[in-house]
């Protein structure tokens, strides 16, 4: 677990830094994806809804394309997927409490699970480990973002 500019960013996840989303292999070839604590900060800290586009269930979503949307009273934005793959399921707990995405972004607040179509190829495009976190820190400094 690492703390970058006040943001909790585990070093064992794979980040699409530009979009503030993470991917994590959870076994059987399945990848779990979610938003980072940085995205939670940028969204204003209180969400009204997190909605996975159910039309996409069972279909392939390309890396960087919208997998879900987040809404607050003043903000709306996409949750792009960090990896290409077939959308298997959405986190059903988000309907009851979208704010677990912010309170527990790497645990209960995951957003969806994906069967990747090119994990080996795309893995190298994601930031991970200490080098990945250093890259994330550069992005946060450039954007002037912190969780403090």
């Amino acid at each position, binding site marked *: 677990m690492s703390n970058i500019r006040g943001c909790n960013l585990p070093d064992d996840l794979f980040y699409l830094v530009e979009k503030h989303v993470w991917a994590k292999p959870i076994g059987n070839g399945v990848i779990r994806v979610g938003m980072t604590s940085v995205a939670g900060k940028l969204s204003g800290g209180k969400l009204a809804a997190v909605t996975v*586009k159910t039309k996409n269930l069972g279909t392939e979503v390309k890396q960087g*394309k*919208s997998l879900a*949307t987040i*809404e607050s009273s*003043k903000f*709306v*934005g*996409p949750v792009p997927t960090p990896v290409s793959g077939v959308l298997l399921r959405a986190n059903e707990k988000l309907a009851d409490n979208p704010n677990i995405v912010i309170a527990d972004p790497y645990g209960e607040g995951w957003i969806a699970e994906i069967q990747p179509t090119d994990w080996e190829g795309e893995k190298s495009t994601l930031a991970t480990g200490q080098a990945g976190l250093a890259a994330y820190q550069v992005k946060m400094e450039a954007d002037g973002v912190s969780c403090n």
Partner: protein
Amino acid sequence: MADDKVMIVMTSGPDTPRRCATPFFFASLAVAMEYDVTMFFTIDGTLLLKKGVAETIFPKTGGEPVSKFLRDALENGVKFLACTASMELHDLQPSDLIPEVQMVGGASMWQVAEDSKTVLTF
């Protein structure tokens, strides 16, 4: 590349402030869902595009002005079309409106509607 086109027809204007933010919010939401979004302004909706007007309309006392939601929609890539007949209705000239809007005839409304998967009217 957007999955589908959707259209929002905006007829509400400064007389009904509470009806003026949500359509822009829904437009931004649709972009976040990868839709190609067009807002078509007619009747009183066109008045929201008059320079300086959206900044003065507050859907909620103490809240954000309509201009905030309008700017978010534009920055997200929502296309704005305005009906030329509604400009006549309100004695507006093209130079009276914000530059991001494109003036079109009423027939364009039908063409965009026919090309769209969903049409919402506010």
